[in-house]
Each structure stands twice: as C-alpha cells, then as structure tokens.
C-alpha cells in the first residue's frame, strides 16, 4: 500500500529541478528551507569534506532557489541605474556586477548580482522576492520585468578545480573568462550561460540553464568532474566559506529595510561595509540623498571582520578543564562585543575557519571602534558561564586566494 499525500495546498516546499539527483545523494537527509525550496544542508553526515571541496577541489551546489528577474527594454539600463547603487552604465555586455539596493532613506533592501545579457537585457538576482519593489519603481519606463526564478535553474561550481571541470564539459574554454564576467556556451548541445561568480570567495562559476536540461547538466558535471574531486555540497559548508570570504547574508547579517519593523534594525550600505559599491557620482538613484547626508555626518556603524584571539580562548576552556570548544558549523546568533564596560557592537555570524585555523566572525561595530586592529571583547559561553575574550578587528576577506581573480597564463 503506498502512502498518498492528500495535502494539496500550494504552500508545500518546492523541489528544485535537480532534486531527483540531490535527494538520492543526500546521505544525511538533512535539508533546510531556502526561498521555499528544499535545499541540502549537507550531503554527507558531516560537512567537512564538502567544505574542503570548496577550498581544495570543486564543490557543486544547487542554487536554483535564488530569486532571479529579467529586466528588458530600451530603458533597462537607465532603470537599473536608478534602482541600485552601482554604476550600471559602465557594465558591459557579458559583465556581472555585485550591488546592493536601498530604499529612499538609503537603507538596504537586498543585495545581489546584475548580469548584462545584452544592451537592453539584464538578469538581477536577489535573496528575497523583489518583484514588487522592482516593478513599482519601473513605472513609466520602457522595461518589462519578468520573474525568472522558476524559468532558470542554476548550479554553482566552486573551488580550485572548477575551471578544469568546466573546460572538460564545455565546448568553449573558460580560460579567458575573467572574474565577474560571463559567457554563453554549450555542454554538448545544451545551451548554458556561465558566470565567474559565487558565494565562496574562491575560484568559481555559476551555471545558468533551462530547468529541462538540469538533470543532464548535473550528470555531465558529476561524470567529468569525478577525477577532479567534484563534490555535491550543501549549505553548511557554503556558510563557512562565505564568512571566510567576508560576504554578507540577508536576514542573518542584516535585515531588509522593507520588513525591519524598527529603525535600528535597518542598515545603510556604508554600515554594511559596502561603501565601495555606492557610486555617488551617478546622477540619481534611490536613496542617494539620504546616503549623501549619511556620508556628510559619517556613518554611525561599520561592518567588519573580527578574529577571536586563540590564546585567551584556549585559556578560558582550559580553566574549565576542557579542550577549546570550537563551533563545528557556522553560527548565526547575535553575539555582543564590548569595549570596556560598554557594548559597542555585535557579531552576526561566525565560524572556525578550517583553512585559516582562525576563529572568525562578521560584526556590526560602532564606527569609532571599527578601525583595523581595534581590540574588542567578545562574549563567549564556556560551560554555561559568560566570559569575555579578546577579539581584534581584521581585514576582510579573511580568505582571499589569488586564484579567485586570476586567469591561467
């Protein structure tokens, strides 16, 4: 007798077009929700091997749950330039730009990448649904906005061997594809777009395709990638890698101003370390005035990398008779940071970095305490008791290999 699911409401989690493969590979059967999709937490019982695939081999991640929108029309570039903080005018066809976007008060709504597919056609990715916001701001412009979330499937192939694998599968060489550029090619007779982007801070690519080709592409990559150590990888490993890369995550490191409820939960790009991505020379964009004012008075907060100092951390645990207790996975619990008796910030995500052998975190810190080398105290729990242990503000990305940007000679 087979079990029949009687639940027909439209709120069930979506299954990615890769699910037929990923579900069978997922030994741990651990899944997380990601934008309404069922997404693998880790494929093996532990994420170690998947993490090291990102850093030393090649990790294959199903990133279909990303929100994707196509902006097309004569005004597409002008529109995007108004919507986001980066200068889309200089984004060439085949180029990709990472950018935040803000509300009228200069507070961040979301962040993502913009791919210029042609003179008049772009794809923008986001963490949360942004269709309404995008559409609302396009009023009166010659653009059509299409939700591409379900019409394009995507995989991320990240790690030092990712280029070699794609070269083995693709009909065109990836050797000259530069960091944050993309190209159209084919895998056999399957058309795909490949962008040299990712969420790991390593050499890596994202592959965009028609969902109907999803399984064939997956199989091809796994087959050709086997001798290069290709490893299906879940979100636990990705979370460690993205912290090492100093990349922020919506709803973890910041809250979208669209549903922040209270003012103090909102952040400007400056307060998230994204000042470099705000192009004030642009004529106008949403939030510009407010951001100008913020620059003039100086942002109140900064977003920095901190390193929890090992020696003292070890001492705390040794006093309790324990080996240093390190988090096995990345954490997302807001953790207070002090200067003297005063709380001057909070870390929003942190992890032990297996590749750097350092305990690192991303943190919101009051600007005056956020300079590189600034010494703060990090709240730590050792055997149920709260301790303060030194942490230092350090440069991000924590991990920044040369291969991320380089091309083979």
């Amino acid at each position, binding site marked *: 007798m087979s079990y029949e699911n009687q639940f027909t409401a439209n709120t069930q989690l979506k299954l990615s077009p890769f699910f037929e493969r990923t579900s069978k590979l997922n030994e741990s059967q651990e899944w997380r929700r990601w934008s309404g999709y069922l997404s693998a937490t880790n494929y093996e019982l*532990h994420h170690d091997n998947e993490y090291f695939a990102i850093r030393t081999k090649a990790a294959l991640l199903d990133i279909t749950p990303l929100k994707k929108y196509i902006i097309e029309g004569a005004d597409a570039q002008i529109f995007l330039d108004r919507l986001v903080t980066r200068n889309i005018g200089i984004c060439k066809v085949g180029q990709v730009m990472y950018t935040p976007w803000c509300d009228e008060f200069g507070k961040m709504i979301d962040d993502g990448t913009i791919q210029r597919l042609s003179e008049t056609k772009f794809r923008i990715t986001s963490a949360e649904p942004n269709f309404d916001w995008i559409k609302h701001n396009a009023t009166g412009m010659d653009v059509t906005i299409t939700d591409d979330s379900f019409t394009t499937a995507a995989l991320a192939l990240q790690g030092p*061997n990712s280029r070699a694998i794609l070269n083995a599968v693709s009909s065109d060489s990836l050797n000259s594809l530069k960091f944050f550029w993309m190209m159209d090619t084919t895998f056999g007779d399957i058309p795909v777009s490949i962008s040299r982007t990712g969420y790991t801070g390593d050499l890596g690519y994202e592959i965009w395709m028609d969902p109907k080709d999803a399984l064939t592409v997956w199989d091809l990559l796994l087959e050709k990638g086997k*001798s*290069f*150590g290709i490893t299906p990888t879940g979100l636990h490993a990705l979370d460690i890698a993205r912290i090492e890369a100093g990349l922020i995550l919506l709803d973890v490191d910041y809250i979208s101003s669209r549903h922040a409820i209270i003012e103090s939960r909102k952040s400007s790009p400056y307060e998230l370390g994204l000042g470099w991505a705000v192009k004030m020379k642009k004529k106008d964009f949403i939030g510009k005035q407010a951001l100008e004012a913020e620059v003039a008075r100086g942002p109140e907060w900064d977003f920095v990398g901190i390193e929890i100092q*090992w020696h003292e951390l070890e001492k705390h645990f*040794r006093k309790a008779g324990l*080996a240093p207790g390190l988090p096995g996975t990345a954490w997302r619990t807001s953790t207070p940071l002090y200067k003297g008796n005063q709380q001057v910030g909070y870390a929003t995500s942190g992890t*032990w970095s297996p590749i750097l052998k350092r305990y690192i975190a991303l943190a919101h810190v009051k600007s005056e305490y956020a300079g590189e080398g600034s010494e703060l105290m990090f709240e730590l729990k050792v055997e149920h008791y709260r301790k303060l242990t030194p942490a230092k503000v350090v440069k991000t990305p924590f991990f920044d290999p040369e291969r991320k940007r380089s091309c083979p000679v």
Partner: protein
Amino acid sequence: MPGVKKYDAIVIGGGHNGLTAAAYLSRAGKKVLVLERRYILGGAAVTEEIFPGFKFSVCSYVVSLMKPNVMRELMLPKFGLELLPLESTFTPLENDYLLRTADADQTYREIARHSTKDAETYMRFGPAMGQIGMAVRPILETIAPNVIRPSLSDLAATKKLLNHFKTLSSEQFEYLTKLMTMSSADFLDEWFEFEPLKASMSASGIIGTFMGPRSPGSAYVMLHHYMGDIDGAFRAWGFQRGGTGAVSMAIARSAEHFGADIMTEAPVEKVIVKNGRAVGVALENGNEYNSDIVISGLDPKLSFLKMVDESDLPSDFVTDIKNFRIRGSSGKVNLALDGLPNFTCLPGEGHHLRGAISISPSYDHLEKAYDDAKYGNFSQEPYMDIILPSVLDPEMAPPGKHVMSCFVQYAPYNINGGWNDQKREAFGDAVVNTIARFAPNIRDIILHRQVLTPADLEATFGLTEGNIFHGELTLQQLFAMRPAVKWADYTTPIKNYYQCGSGTHPGGGITGSPGEMAAKKILGLW
C-alpha cells in the same frame, strides 16, 4: 674560503623543524641561513614525483600534531598549509571489517555489530584519552628543564608543571600512570574486548618504535598519538593538500617571507668549532659560512657524532648519545595505481577509502610481525597504515589513477645479512601479498612500486638507522632525557651550537614543536 656573508644563525637541514626554527628566528629579526643537503626541502616531510604524474609523500604522510600556534605565528595557511580531514579508520578482516568514522552514531553502530560493550566503551574512551592528552599537553609545551643543574627558569617551569599535576583528578592520575608503564595491549584489554578494534587502536603504540603491542611502554607511544589536535579536536588526523612536502614548503615560504636564506644541494660537512664554540659550518664543497650560532635539525647521532668531533664533547655526553635508541623499525612502500583497491570485505568505492586503512586484524598479527623483526627479519605479514592521498586530493595522481602510501612495520635496520636489492624487493612483495589478502586486485593495478627500507630512509633522508622519529618515543628518551639529560633544552655542550630536530623534546611527527621551542629558547638566551 672564509665566510662570504655573515649570518646570525645557520640551520643545518631543511627539514620541517629546521625550517620552523629558521622562520621563528627570522621573524625575530635574525639573519638566518638554512642549508639542505638534498635538492628539495622538507627532510622527511617531502613530496616527490617518483613516477611521472604521481606525487608521493615519500616518507611522512599524515599531519596530526602540528601546533596551532605555530600555524598562526608563522602564518602557514597564507603560505599554503591546507589540512584536509582524514575521517575514518578502516580495518579490513578476512570476511568482515571494522570501520570507524567521524560520525559517533555510525561508529557506535559499527562497533556494536561486533561488541555492544565496546561500542559503549568507545564513546567514553575518546574523551578520557582527550583529557589525559590535555593533562600531558603542558609538558609538551614546556622547554625541558635541566634536572641536574636547574636554572631559575627551569625551577619555575618545573614548579608550574608540578602545580599543574596537582590539578589532575585521581582517575586521570591512574590512567596516566598506567599509560606510562603498561603495554598498549594490556592497557586496551582493560577497556575493550573485540580483538580487531583493540589491535587497530594498539597500532599507534608501535609506530616508529621497535616494540610490539605487548611490549611495556607502548601505551605511552599510543598516548603521544592521541595528543594531536586539529581545530581543537583531539585525535584528528589530517592530510596536507599536495602531500606533506607542501607543509614544509609553507614553512619555507614563511621563513623566506621573514627574510631567511635557504640553500638546497648544500650538504654540510662539519660544524666549525673554535675554542669550544660553534662559529660556522663547512660545506662538503669546501665553502664555509660564519655565524653567531649553529642549529642542527638533524638527529642526535648526526648532530653529535658526525657534525662535530667527539673530542669537542664531554665523554659522558658522547656515551649518552651513543646509547640513544634510534632503531629503525619501519619501511615505506609507495604505489602508483591504475585504479582503486577493491576490498573483498567491503567492495567498491566509499568512505572507507577516504581515511586510514589499518592492516591490524589482531594482536597476534602485530606481535608476530614484531617477532620477525626481533630476530632480524622483515615481517612476512606486516602491520600497515595505508592511505590513498589521491582520493582526498585528486591532484596527487593523473585523472582516474591513484597513489597509495603504505607505512609498513616491521622492517629492522639491522636485518640479517644487511639490506640489498633482493631483500628490498622481497620486502615489497611481502607488503603487496599482505594487501592482496584483503584486496586481491592490488596486484593487477600497480603501475609503479617504490620500496623504502630503513637503510633507504637513512640514505635518502639522513634518518639514522631509518628511525622516523629521530629516536624512539619511549619514556626514557622523552622530555628532560631527550636526547640526553642536561641537554634537553636545545642547548648542547658546545657553546652556540643548538639542536632543533625531532630528537629533541617533544619528539617526532610533523609538529613544528621542537623547531619552535628551540628558536624560542635561543631567542631567550640571545
């Protein structure tokens, strides 16, 4: 030709400890020269392409005890240190197997398949050993005091250790005493009953040591292997991407970053001693280099019986060094494979090939292997610790091909009649035959076989008698006795001549610890 360039310090030997000492001294602003005899750096921690396309960690093959502070202080991750977890231990048996993995529940279930008692005990054993490891750790991190004529800092260090030992619980004290005196077999018998589990665990008590699992003292060697930690987790073994040579290269790059000069193919003939002081070194090619101090990363036999004249040393010290036990007990067989070994008891590919493969089905297997060696033969059916580096790091071999590293024990240095080509091949055959008992396809997939006997290890890596630890890790050769009483704090009877190899405290393995502590001692005296 008297010294062309004046150095503050010269390090003899570009092994990982010599390089570590050089990096620390350079970091402190000293001008350092490292002289390596071979064409390649790393000493025993070296990666070489022995067969085209196949890279071998020729000698040392895993990393577990590398000190976290050394990694950080020398910025080794920045210079290429990348340690991948070796997550399982697989013991193939005749018709069954034992597979321990990183997942506690999985391992519990697997051991319980053989013994429920052991499965539950196993969960207590790991943490207990971890605690003992922590208890002993401060010893490893203390520069061994001169117990005969202690200085003030020696007294302070000793007092600190005594105070530390006062904090141990009576249970910890009991375990510690047992570990220091018992054989690993006897010690494990108190905990477990399933023979293959006990045998596999006892194996770490014999590695690099001329003892069997039933020899008293082997329990301590086992503990030494339990003290390794990676990422704060005790008893975690790691594999360096690119082989162990990449660890050495990371340290070398760090040393160069801090300003050290490193020379390869520069064999040192002698330390130049004038009026009881080391003043430089003479190379085999006749070149001489002056320096304020000279540090030897070689083993104690070479440091004191070859690099300097006995007449420059006190005779009781010479006697101690001559008595220092450095009997080589192991060989290394590296295989280039056309595919993966297929184990009869667990066919196909899987997690079991991603960790250590331990050929240790029973105490008798190990003890008989030792019996052969006791009487001057290599083991007909040796104990082996095998890993498949290419499964963890595909770049170690061409696509679809593999490399297999077999640490093999026992192979006595003083084999009856001496080692020769014929015996080397016979030893290689014994290794392949033993693996074939469990994975018969091995014979058909070998593309190339490199067999290293203790005599080869001595000739290639300058390891006296082929001992991988620069001297056995038995109690009488540790801490304040390593390599000799009074001279366990990296100093030597010759002024300005220091030692920093694995033959000093805290001993062998890729730890960086002797190099680090020697450098810190030297900088303290400078």
